[in-house]
């Protein structure tokens, strides 16, 4: 461990400590005024020289929120790892990561299997010298297989991410009905989570999934002390097989950090159809009692659009949220805007393979799976 990393591993980052006076937004759903005073301004990182002046940049900092019941704070918006791999050039991916960090984003998501390692490789490069500025998460992709494989994946992730520890390591894609049973089995992936924590290779552990609140509840209620749980949270989820209604309260009751994803339904279909505004979708997701909302951002333009919402973010009121939910409840009712719940097309082929489920060789993700890893 470097000194900076060791320090980081034991306490919250010094760079963040100053922000701890900020009250956590969202945990009550009430509107909380966020400080953007001058004391903050003097300690802000120097803006990048080439950063364009944006009149709609949004005022204030990106709010920092409690990571579950811990003392750790994370930025209310996070950078999704998968979209990093959508860039064609590593330089563009690096620029996005740097601009996000400069803007005050600390939460960075990734996953062992994204683009066969390219996104971890690229993020590792982009975080060189900046590791202590971020809360770094990646995911382990055993999909029912055992702890030994998980530990191998962990070593690979650490090497690619050029760090000696993660802040959060999550079981990726808990999707199938028997996934909880497999994770909890003797020699299963949960034993790897324990081991990695004990070895200081990760500070926190959790799991992710997009399929069914019942499967998340099964994972939680079997009793493992997860620090974080990730799930799709958005306006339409609010009224269809709802993680918001069924899972989120359970997490907050247990002091587990809730991590939102798919704030725009994964495909942004509702936005493209003109049904809901992108800004409303992001605002709604960020207003839920979550630690962070992980956003896929495949261009600086999208990053800046999201930053406009996140800077000085004030959560919507309960009434405003209810209004958005109710207005779109009808469209939500068949799940056609939440295909990760209502279609098999979102089921990750990397997970289907070890489960013995058939693969669709015409699917982009399947083709991607058999490609060589890219990146530096």
């Amino acid at each position, binding site marked *: 461990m470097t000194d900076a990393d060791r320090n980081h591993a034991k306490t919250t980052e010094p760079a963040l400590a100053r922000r701890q006076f900020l009250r956590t937004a969202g945990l009550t759903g009430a509107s909380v005024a966020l400080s953007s005073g001058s004391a903050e301004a003097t300690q802000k990182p120097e803006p990048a020289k080439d950063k364009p002046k944006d009149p709609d940049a949004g005022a204030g900092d990106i709010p920092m929120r409690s990571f579950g019941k811990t003392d750790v704070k994370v930025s209310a918006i996070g950078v999704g790892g998968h979209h990093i791999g959508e860039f064609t050039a590593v330089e563009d991916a690096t620029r996005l990561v740097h601009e996000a960090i400069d803007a005050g984003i600390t939460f960075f998501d990734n996953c062992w299997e994204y683009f066969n390692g390219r996104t971890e490789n690229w993020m590792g490069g982009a975080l060189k010298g900046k590791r202590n500025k971020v809360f770094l998460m990646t995911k382990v992709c055993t999909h029912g297989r055992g702890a030994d494989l998980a530990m191998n994946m962990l070593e690979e992730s650490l090497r690619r991410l050029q760090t000696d520890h993660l802040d959060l390591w999550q079981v990726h894609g808990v999707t*199938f*009905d028997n996934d909880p049973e497999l994770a909890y089995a003797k020699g299963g992936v949960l034993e790897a989570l324990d081991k990695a924590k004990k070895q200081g290779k990760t500070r926190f552990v959790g799991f992710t999934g997009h399929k069914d609140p019942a499967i998340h509840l099964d994972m939680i209620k079997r009793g493992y002390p997860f620090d974080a749980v990730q799930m799709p949270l958005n306006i339409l989820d609010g009224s269809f097989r709802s993680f918001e209604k069924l899972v989120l309260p359970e997490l907050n009751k247990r002091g587990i950090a809730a991590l939102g994803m798919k704030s725009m339904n994964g495909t942004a279909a509702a936005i493209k159809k003109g049904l809901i505004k992108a800004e409303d979708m992001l605002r709604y997701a960020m207003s839920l009692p979550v630690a962070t909302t992980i956003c896929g951002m495949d261009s600086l333009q999208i990053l800046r659009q999201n930053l406009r919402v996140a800077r000085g973010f004030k959560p919507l009121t309960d009434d405003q949220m209810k209004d958005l939910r109710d207005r779109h409840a009808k469209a939500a009712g068949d799940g056609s805007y939440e295909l990760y719940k209502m*279609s*098999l097309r979102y089921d990750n082929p990397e997970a289907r393979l070890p489960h013995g*489920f058939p693969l669709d060789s015409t699917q982009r993700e399947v083709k991607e799976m058999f490609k060589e890893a890219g990146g530096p």
Partner: protein
Amino acid sequence: MSDQSQPSKPHGPDRRGFLQGAGLVGVGAALSESLLQAAEKPLAPELSNVGPDKIPRKPFGRTKEQVSCIGIGGFSLASAPSLKEAIAIAHEAIDAGVNFFDNAWEYHAGKSEDWMGQALKGKRVKVFLMTKVCTHGRDKKVAMQQLEESLKRLQTDHLDLWQIHEVVYENDPDLHFAKGGVVEALDEAKKAGKVRYVGFTGHKHPAIHLKMLAHDYPFDAVQMPLNAFDASYRSFAKDVLPEVNKRGMAGLGMKSLGGNGQPITKGVVTVEEALRYAMSLPVATTISGIDSLAVLRQNLAIARGFTPMTAKEMETLAKRCAAGAGDGHLELYKSTMKYDGDLGREQHGFQSHKELPL
């Protein structure tokens, strides 16, 4: 009209208890001594009309009605190449001893009911005739109009069973039980003597069926997908069927071959295994999609002289199917939107199938 005042007990508590206890999920739970004994017995209710050349019959819930263990699906009947063949299928089925006939107001835009009406001319008394009402959230008035149309097309003055079709959206129970909703039409139709029994159907999620049942309305029948794959994926057999039997309602199975026959063509199970499994569950009948005389004869051969599998045999088969069942790709009516009908989608304000990003 039959006398409903003396309910019989078609499914004893011992069988039911076993079904819940063993779960049929194929997780390999250790069986206790008494369960092992029960495992040798079938789960299916008492059969009547038994014999090597006969299609056995089973009790229709707690009523005195007996229905054939296999039923003729109305949608597939009108998918037959011609009216002539559809009539031939219906007649051969009746002659073989099948009496349960299924239909729906919306199947093939009325053709299914038309054809069945023609096929049943002079044979109405030989069958237990069911059709479904397709309000999809609309009111009682629409339901009663559909009933009149169904009766006219089916050329009869009454149905044996009238069911609310395709309860598949989470707000469907609320819409159906709303004041002035379709459930009031069920009452009215019964009172008017136009239907003897009422029920509902759906293929989507056990939770939605349970929401319907939670209203404590006295449905006589509940229809659901039941097959060897359902046993380990969002299972109606595990979650809904015991509840239906507890209430003395008739459980009606459908999609015994997974809805599209994929499990058969992929070689996961044989037609005989799949159909025997479905018919061995504690249901009144298994409605089978039959669109040719060849398929009819194949299924009749399985149903003739049918003896239910033992619980142990069923568990073995369910276990074998469990691995492939877990993602729902063998039950697309649950795992995707592909089986949700356009009329229902339209009434709910959802985009049509053509527009769906399937």
